[in-house]
């Protein structure tokens, strides 16, 4: 450390300029200069669009007179939101994504947890190979992953379909009942390794001494994993769950790609696809209301889950 310290200080030429009086921090202007290059774009491209979407969602477009009247935009209160909640397509998309999330998120995180726990035991060889294999999909954009898998689902091209047919099955990955799970599989493939690495990093940070006592008492690896390791890395598991909930509610690219080869995915399959379809029809106010509802559901679910789990851990 001291080596770095002396080297670092030597880099700075002693200009003998203004000296800082001891105690006081940097001037306000300096702090602003550090913060503003991030904060200004953050305001412009994060906060302003949020405020703008909320504002838009309270507007409605009305027409004067009959068919030939002109349209004008006016304040409509919660009118757009009433329409969102009366929209059966909206509820259908929420239902699909809910089913998707309830099944896909736990399955993915369970597999990730098992992999992380196994990589943290002396049971395995080839650890770095397994780690890289699992993490590799994270380098693949969602669109491209969905394109790759759509070839593996395609009845004409897929070697997987060929193999399953050879053992007498008739798989239809793009059928009306299966296509949701085919999309879920793409998400699982993409994100399992990423979540596994978050959990694995947390496991690696646990000091070994914590297990020593348990090992001396003859506890099995299994017992150590579930009774000691999993509770300690609970915060990481919660974090990956929250990220997964956010990701699920944003789902767009994967079903949009599968839609190109399957007629069983509608243009309003997920809430986000619905918002985009509505916006494409120039009904921006309705699309804004849908986006706001999705964002609120995301916040409620993420915070709700964090509160729920932290309370239980606290008691």
């Amino acid at each position: 450390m001291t080596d770095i310290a002396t080297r670092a200080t030597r880099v700075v030429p002693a200009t003998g300029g203004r000296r800082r009086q001891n105690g006081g921090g940097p001037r306000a202007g300096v702090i602003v200069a550090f913060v503003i290059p991030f904060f200004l774009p953050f305001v412009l491209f994060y906060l302003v669009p949020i405020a703008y979407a909320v504002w838009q969602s309270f507007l409605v477009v009305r027409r004067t007179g009959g068919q030939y009247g002109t349209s004008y935009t006016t304040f409509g209160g919660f009118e757009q939101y009433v329409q969102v909640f009366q929209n059966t397509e909206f509820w259908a998309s929420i239902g699909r994504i809910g089913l998707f999330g309830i099944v896909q998120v736990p399955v993915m995180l369970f597999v990730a947890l098992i992999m992380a726990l196994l990589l943290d035991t002396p049971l395995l060889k080839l650890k770095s190979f397994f780690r890289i294999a699992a993490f590799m999909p994270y380098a693949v954009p969602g669109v491209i992953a969905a394109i790759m898998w759509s070839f593996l689902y395609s009845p004409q091209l897929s070697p997987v379909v060929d193999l399953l047919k050879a053992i007498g099955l008739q798989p239809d990955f793009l059928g009306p009942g299966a296509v949701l799970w085919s999309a879920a599989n793409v998400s699982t493939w993409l994100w399992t390794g990423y979540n596994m690495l978050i959990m694995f990093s947390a496991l690696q940070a646990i000091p070994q001494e914590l297990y020593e006592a348990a090992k001396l008492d003859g506890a099995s690896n299994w017992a150590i994993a579930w009774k000691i390791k999993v509770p300690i890395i609970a915060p990481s598991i919660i974090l990956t769950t929250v990220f997964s909930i956010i990701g699920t509610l944003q789902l767009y690219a994967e079903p949009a790609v599968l839609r190109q080869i399957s007629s069983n995915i509608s243009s309003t399959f997920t809430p986000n696809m619905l918002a985009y379809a509505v916006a494409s029809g120039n009904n921006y106010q309705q699309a804004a209301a849908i986006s706001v509802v999705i964002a609120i559901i995301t916040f409620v679910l993420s915070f709700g889950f964090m509160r729920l789990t932290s309370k239980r851990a606290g008691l």
Partner: protein
Amino acid sequence: MNNQTPLRENRVSRTAAMALMFLLAIYFLLPIYFLLVAATKPQGDLASTFGLAFSHFDLFKNLSTLFGRSDGIFARWALNSVIYAVLGAAVGTLISALCGYALAKFKFRGREFLFSVILGGVLVPTTALALPLFLLFSATGIVNTYLAVFLPSIVSPFGVYLARIFTAAAVPEEILESARLDGAGEFRTFFTVALRLMTPSLVTIFLFQFVGIWNNFFLPMVMLQKESLFPITLGLYEWNGQTARVSLLQESVITGALVSIVPVIIVFILLQRFWRTGLAAGSIK
């Protein structure tokens, strides 16, 4: 407990663990292997030969078809992806580092409030921002330009979060003090002393943001109409949608997908350790 049981348990669980991990590794590698094989085949063999076995080795012909299509539009898309991701992540990392450093090292009123607002940004679904951004950008005429994708991409609240905790861990107060005593201003201290100590963490921040921009699809899709501005993801998506009419495009979609993921995968494997520090930091939260 007697001594035999753990040993036997160990051998059984060792085999079971290896078998399970191999199955999972096959699952993760299968689509990539399939893509690799398919990219070497002539279009006609895609449907007529088994997908996991090589047939005619036509990779180079497929590559020249891919890059020759529509006056080399694919190379343009690749270049665009690189511009958006490399430039966006570079600028994004610098501004995240400045802000994270200030949050970690300067004491000022409203600091924690500022930090919580930025952290809240991590939870905002970015796809929810794309549509209102489109409307705002069309009012200012930025829509359908490089800036429309580039500007929103430089903002990464997660990057600021990482920069703050990395700075707190990697930049000791005494070094900053001695730089200040030597008369260096805050910016000079940051650029000559702190940035150097933060370099490994900056690589991590850069990588996360790079992948985020590289993989982004929704934002460019909403913002761009001009094909010459597309990133690879959007370009291949468009091509993939046309394969029903132009079936010969299929081979180019496959080859293009392979070309676009291989460089990133290689960078990933080379820079593995930087991911681990970032993911570990993310899990401390």
